[in-house]
């Protein structure tokens, strides 16, 4: 019965703001979520570090580790005591936990950044066009120059062959498992799931024992080992993706009189397209990074070998491995640049995968 403005009059209060006050249209500053507030923790943390440094000076320790440990413990103790005085032990526990979580977050992020900076810094020394256009054929261990041309070609060929075989097989197997649900589904699914856990080196070992020991190293053998590794993982991911396609898509198509193959090819697979592409890209990224199985099957050479079916062939990972093991500074520098190239390749593939998957889900209107 009363309108909004009458409330104040009726309740006889003076809030200092009349109904026309323009300040009522501007959001209030509530000082951030107090449950996450770090400001109150800054002083205790700094005091803790100070105490530790003081102890180090006075007691004449020389270990960085000891200093860090004492600093952390002292800082937490200060946080606890300080907050407890003001707000009670419940909030004090909350503050200590907040500090610890932030600490582990910072440590983890710090390690990530350290790693990337390290790789980039060491790797950029030899980065240049010549690195990509030469191989190691006429280059001695201590000579400058040389490059990864042979390794990159090797990686591309080996992973390319592996992907060409494993991706179609995996996707069709996933279709068999989820859409057709044939008689051997249970067995196939079980063994696929089991083999996703196969350590990569064991795959290389099997190919080695079966083929390489009799017929020699080759890039194709490496491709075979990679295929054995890729099929279970890509199949399982693809099946999970198919499972996320809602059944009412399929029912809609069937209700229009479509046969099963048309439903799959014209409705399900297009809907799953971005997910499947992402799975493919990620599978390829993993294959690029495999070292052990490739080493056991293609070994690696210094010279360029463009034929994956005959003779040992180099691979980016094998290259880095060999150079690192050599122990002399020049080789190691080359290794680092190779490592940086690897990281960049994986980064590019990964970003492409994310891009595809985000475009896929936005076009579905999710």
């Amino acid at each position, binding site marked *: 019965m*009363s309108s909004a403005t009458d409330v104040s009059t*009726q*309740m006889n209060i003076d809030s200092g703001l009349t109904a026309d006050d323009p300040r*009522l249209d501007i*959001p*209030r500053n509530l*000082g951030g979520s107090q449950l996450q507030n770090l400001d109150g923790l800054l002083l205790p943390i700094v005091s803790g570090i100070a105490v530790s440094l003081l102890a180090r000076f006075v007691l004449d320790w020389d270990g960085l580790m000891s200093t860090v440990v004492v600093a952390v413990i002292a800082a937490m103790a200060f946080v606890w005591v300080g907050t407890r005085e003001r707000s009670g032990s*419940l909030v004090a526990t909350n503050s200590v936990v907040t500090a610890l979580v932030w600490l582990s977050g910072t440590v983890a992020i710090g390690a990530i950044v350290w790693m990337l900076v390290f790789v980039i810094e060491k790797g950029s020394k030899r980065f240049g066009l010549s690195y990509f256009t030469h191989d190691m054929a006429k280059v001695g261990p201590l000579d400058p120059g040389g490059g990864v041309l042979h390794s990159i070609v090797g990686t591309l060929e080996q992973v390319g062959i592996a992907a060409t075989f494993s991706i179609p097989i995996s996707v069709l197997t996933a279709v068999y498992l989820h859409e057709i649900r044939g008689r051997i589904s249970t067995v196939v699914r079980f063994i696929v799931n089991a083999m996703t856990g196969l350590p990569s080196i064991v795959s290389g070992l099997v190919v080695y024992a079966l083929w390489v020991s009799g017929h020699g190293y080759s890039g194709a053998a490496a491709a075979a080992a990679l295929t054995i590794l890729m099929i279970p993982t890509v199949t399982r991911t693809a099946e999970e993706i198919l499972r996320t396609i809602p059944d009412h898509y399929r029912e809609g198509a069937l209700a229009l009189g479509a046969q099963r193959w048309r439903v799959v090819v014209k409705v399900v697979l297009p809907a799953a397209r971005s997910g499947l592409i992402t799975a493919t890209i990620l599978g390829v990224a993993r294959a690029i990074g495999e070292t052990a199985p490739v080493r056991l099957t293609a070994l690696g050479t210094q010279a360029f070998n463009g034929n994956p079916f005959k003779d040992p062939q180099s691979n980016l990972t094998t290259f880095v491995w060999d150079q690192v093991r050599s122990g002399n500074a020049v080789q190691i520098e080359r290794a680092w640049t190779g490592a940086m190239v690897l990281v960049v390749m994986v980064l590019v593939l990964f970003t492409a995968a994310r891009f595809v998957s985000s475009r896929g889900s936005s076009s579905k209107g999710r």
Partner: protein
Amino acid sequence: MTAVLDLTTTTRTSSTLRAENLSAWFGKRKVLERCSLGMAANTVTALIGPSGCGKSTFIRMLNRMHELVPSAQMAGSVYLDDTDIYGGGLTAPEVRREIGMVFQKPNPFPSMSIRQNVLAGLALSGTRTSGHDELVERCLRGAGLWNEVKDRLNDNGAGLSGGQQQRLCIARALALKPKVLLMDEPCSALDPISTRVIEQTIAELAAEVTIVIVTHNMQQAQRVSNTCAFFLVEDYGQPGRIVEFGITTDMFGNPTDQRTADYVSGRFG
């Protein structure tokens, strides 16, 4: 016809809640504009109106749950007796110990027994009391659940029926002896019999706590509330506003605003 609400009375443990010129945003979108409402001690106030008018947003501003959404912002004040809950004196958890909330979907903690659920609020808010057994019994009686669960207090809290779970959540909120109890559509997920039991509970609880209830069900508003506020959005993109408020029987029998009259007679919903 007109009745002046005497909002200056205060009673023993419960309190007056006053919202003044509350506005709310989610990011740049304004969802509530200048809503003011007085909720007297020991009364039941119903917030009614069609969906999407900001009733839930309004009630969540009364116990500072609105600000949990990262893009949420507010303006205006809410006074519990004489203290601005958004002022510097009180932290959000402290406010929530005085102003409790029951949600639309019952949410007992699945990792705890019935007894532990009732006492959960004490541990979570750092309140210490003695006499846990008496407290559990008193709260479960207050929520109308005691007779049904007194022999199985150690059973899992999530194993009850929907209506029982909701009463358990009411008992859990009562354990903190709040001054105000907010209820955001507490019966909309329940069957009619559970709804009836809970409405009876609300009537009894009003003697101890001030209650504010959001409801879609106009008949429920008539059954349980003393006072009523009608929220409305004029058009797409407009913020919600309180169009009219007053004593429930007057609002439904003799509304002042034409829009209120249209809503309560079901001409739009």
